[in-house]
């Protein structure tokens, strides 16, 4: 009777695909580090995908000044994405060589621009949430995450005010602008619950003091949204079945198209520099 179990070839092959190559003395996979990296992907992907979406307005905005204003938001977000993805690995590699199922952004940010009002609706609903999140993350036990959030909070505070300002202008504007603003909010409304979803991974990070618990500021979020809607004279859309799953890599068809545009040059010419 052999003293050791027989090792099948399949198992050898399987071990060979592990990051450590299945080496005998490889350290155990650090689950904590993996969870932290996943969280940084979520934060980074939100910023990256929305930044890319806003960049699509470049040259197409209603006025030159608005063009610049949206491009500024995009650049702030791409800067934040670079920092957060850098915490999860090589930022460029993660941004340009990762497939759609590995993206961890929420559904709201990947939504197509639509008209200007829908872009503003998406921006306002997201920036208001992101600002509360970054403010909470400033007291994260993870110094790197707290630092990125503190820098980002100043930028996002401006995004939030700018977007809220436009919501009021369009909502309390002409008949057409009010209709478009209401339609934009209708489109985006079902993606709000995902922002406050806490899965097992996030719960673990909250308990370790690394992640912020979005449920802590959900009431503040709802209050702020209501306040601006009243000023804009728009009725809040009805709550419908929420769309969830972005954090697990479940995305809509739109994200693939966005990534195709964003990634095709680096994928065609992986070593290109300019």
């Amino acid at each position, binding site marked *: 009777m052999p003293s050791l179990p027989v090792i099948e070839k399949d198992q050898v092959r399987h071990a060979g695909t592990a990051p450590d190559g299945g080496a005998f003395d490889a350290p155990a996979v650090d689950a904590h580090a993996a969870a932290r990296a996943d969280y940084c992907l979520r934060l980074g992907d939100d910023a990256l995908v929305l930044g890319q979406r806003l960049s699509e307005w470049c040259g197409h905005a*209603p*006025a*030159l*000044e608005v063009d*610049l*204003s949206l491009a*500024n938001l995009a650049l702030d977000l791409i800067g934040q994405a670079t920092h957060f993805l850098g915490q999860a690995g090589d930022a460029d590699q993660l941004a340009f060589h990762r497939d759609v199922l590995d993206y961890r952004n929420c559904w709201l940010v990947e939504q197509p621009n639509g008209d200007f009002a829908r872009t503003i609706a998406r921006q306002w609903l997201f920036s208001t949430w992101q600002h509360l999140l970054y403010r909470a993350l400033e007291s994260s036990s993870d110094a790197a995450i707290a630092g990125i959030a503190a820098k980002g909070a100043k930028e996002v505070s401006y995004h939030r005010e700018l977007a809220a*300002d436009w919501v009021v*202008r369009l909502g309390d504007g002409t008949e057409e602008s009010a209709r478009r603003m209401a339609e934009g909010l209708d489109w985006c409304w079902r993606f709000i619950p995902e922002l406050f979803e806490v899965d097992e991974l996030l719960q673990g990070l909250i308990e370790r003091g690394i992640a912020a618990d979005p449920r802590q500021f959900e009431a503040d979020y709802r209050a702020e949204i209501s306040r601006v809607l009243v000023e804009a004279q728009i009725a809040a859309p009805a709550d419908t079945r929420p769309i969830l799953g972005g954090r697990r890599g479940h995305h809509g068809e739109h994200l693939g198209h966005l990534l195709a545009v964003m990634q095709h040059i680096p994928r065609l010419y992986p070593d290109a520099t300019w």
Partner: protein
Amino acid sequence: MSDEWPLWEVFVRAKGGLNHRHVGSVHAPDSELALRHARDTYTRREEGVSLWVVPSASIVASDPADSGPMFEPAQDKVYRHPTFYDIPDVVTHI
């Protein structure tokens, strides 16, 4: 859209203690948005610490056709420049 928006002149103070200087103009429907547009257009590269916007319509300008009577009389009044004084060597920073 921008055709209907009035024009605003933008002034930027580069740092504390300096004057606001005219840097250009933006289109905006009102003063609040004019300030945002000015921020996004003219202070993207840390150009300033303070911004003014003024409706272009509020600027009263001299008529270029009057530039003769307006400005030429000053041409031969060199004595208005404070350059005819001997400054003692001990006085610095002038």
